[in-house]
């Protein structure tokens, strides 16, 4: 049944157009440090506009507006979800940020899957293809993000074996088969309905088995990829309602997420396929080369070395984040600067558990933006650097990536700290890094180890430097 177009309908569509423009402008502004915060507000305003106009003006195919009783339920759910989301987002520690983004992405995926599931049983919905695609993609994004969360939080260990790759291909084939079966066969609706639940279950399983074998070090790439999936799933749901704001917003985020994923892969010098299928971690014994001896350094010696050098570069890694050492690190930096030492931070594109993770943490500790130097810019200066302090980073400074073709990380660009005059590595113990690869940097002649929790070590260093 079609009803005459009213002014409300026109205003609604126009507001969707505005929302889509707000999303694009928002993301554009978000990609520049100067305007990023404004960009986020633009995107949020676009969303608010679309929500309000939908609530007030949306009419179904019979021309009915949203009733008051339904309105109460909608507002209740929004207020509840909103308060909870805002509270979690405000309270969470900066170090747990990647986990939180995974959780939010999982809930977006779940919402898309639920909408698709309900709409499949709606007889007025004629686009079964997009509905099912939304269901599959949304479910994969949901369960995959939950596994990514578990890995980032250290609750789930990597599970890799060759056969899992084949199992995954098999599940994927199963999903395609079910999709085609439901779409083209002439079976009764009840049977299809049951098959759709099977499809939902298989998709959820696929999300798990897809992320399970991917190494924890690659989680940033996975989250970005799943983020792109969530966008696409939302766009599919948008097709069901012929809703331009959903279609445009979803596809736009899907494309943006995809390019961000590829940029991250590029930063690690690996292809997306290699990340998804390639084995990472464990195994890769590599050539057995001559290990030197590990040499420790005392806190006092380290303090003297730092205080009397002219150029110091700090290489932060996940260890800094885990130890919550960003503030004390910034304090040491300020002390050294006051004593005439030039201090810079070398940021590897995939340091931490998320690209830009280190930047966010250091910004929280009031480290000026200009002091954070990207890998490619700082590498040529390494031979001129007196002391490099590696705080809880491992794989991103492993020289095996440059010269050991048998190493699993061979070819990944690294920060060439081994070229500096002296290297101090702060580490809890001699354990291997996230990718579980031996690091020959620790045995090099110009390397000294400072064992202990990064925060404690830095605290002691600060005390020593003050005493000098």
């Amino acid at each position: 049944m079609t009803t005459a177009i009213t002014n409300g309908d026109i205003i609604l569509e126009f507001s969707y157009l505005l929302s889509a423009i707000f999303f694009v402008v928002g993301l554009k502004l978000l990609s520049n440090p100067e305007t990023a915060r404004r960009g986020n507000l633009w995107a949020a305003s676009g969303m608010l506009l679309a929500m309000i106009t939908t609530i007030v003006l949306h009419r179904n195919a019979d021309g009915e507006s949203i009733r008051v009783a339904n309105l109460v339920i909608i507002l209740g759910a929004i207020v509840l979800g909103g308060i909870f989301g805002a509270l979690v987002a405000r309270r969470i520690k900066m170090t747990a940020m990647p986990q939180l983004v995974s959780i939010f992405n999982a809930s977006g995926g779940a919402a898309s899957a639920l909408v698709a599931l309900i709409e499949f049983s709606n007889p007025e919905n004629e686009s079964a293809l997009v509905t099912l695609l939304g269901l599959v993609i949304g479910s994969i994004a949901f369960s995959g993000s939950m596994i990514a969360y578990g890995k980032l939080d250290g609750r789930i260990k990597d599970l890799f074996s060759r056969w899992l790759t084949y199992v995954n291909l098999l599940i994927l084939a199963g999903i395609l088969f079910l999709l085609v079966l439901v779409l083209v066969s002439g079976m009764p609706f009840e049977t299809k309905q049951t098959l759709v639940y099977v499809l939902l279950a298989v998709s959820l399983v696929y999300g798990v088995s897809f992320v399970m074998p991917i190494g924890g070090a690659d989680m940033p790439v996975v989250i970005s990829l799943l983020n792109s999936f969530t966008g696409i799933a939302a766009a599919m749901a948008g097709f069901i309602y012929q809703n331009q704001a959903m279609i445009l917003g979803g596809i736009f985020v899907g494309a943006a997420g995809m390019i961000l994923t590829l940029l991250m892969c590029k930063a690690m010098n690996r292809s997306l396929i290699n990340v998804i299928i390639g084995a990472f971690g464990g195994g890769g014994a590599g050539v057995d080369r001559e290990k030197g001896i590990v040499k420790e350094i005392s806190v006092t010696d380290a303090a003297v070395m730092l205080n009397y050098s002219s150029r110091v570069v700090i290489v932060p890694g996940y260890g800094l984040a885990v130890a919550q050492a960003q503030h004390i690190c910034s304090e040491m930096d300020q002390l050294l600067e006051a004593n005439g030492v030039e201090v810079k931070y070398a940021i590897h594109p995939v340091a931490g558990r998320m690209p830009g993770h280190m930047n966010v943490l250091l910004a929280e500790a009031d480290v000026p933006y200009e002091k954070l130097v990207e890998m490619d810019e700082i590498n040529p200066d390494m031979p001129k650097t007196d002391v490099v302090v590696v705080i809880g980073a491992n794989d991103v400074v492993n020289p095996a990536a440059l010269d050991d073709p048998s190493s699993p990380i061979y070819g990944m660009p690294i920060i060439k700290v081994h070229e500096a005059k002296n290297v101090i590595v702060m580490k809890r113990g001699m354990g291997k890094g996230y990718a579980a690869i031996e690091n020959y940097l620790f045995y090099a002649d110009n390397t000294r180890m400072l064992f202990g929790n990064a925060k404690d070590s830095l605290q002691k260093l600060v005390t020593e430097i003050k005493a000098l």
Partner: protein
Amino acid sequence: MEGILQFFFSNKETIFIIALTIFLGLEVISNVPSVLHTPLMSGANAISGVIIIGGIILVGHADLANLSEGSHLLNLVLGIFALLFGTLNVIGGFVVTDRMLEMFKKKKK
């Protein structure tokens, strides 16, 4: 196959827009300093919560008078969950992105 072609034809305007939107998305993001990857991912994630509109439409037009009929009640409950999850994604996403970016701003003084 015929279904897919039919789908393409009846949605051709939208599909044109989608093709262009993909290029727009690639173009807007392709030149981003890695400093901003995390906030950008988080902001994009919040936008993907646009599925919340679907949740509003679903719950908004649910027939509250005939809940006992068929799977109406189940659908309403699932719809409310979709709305809850969507809001969590949208509000949480924008708030956390703002929190990250707030820090970038502070140090500039």
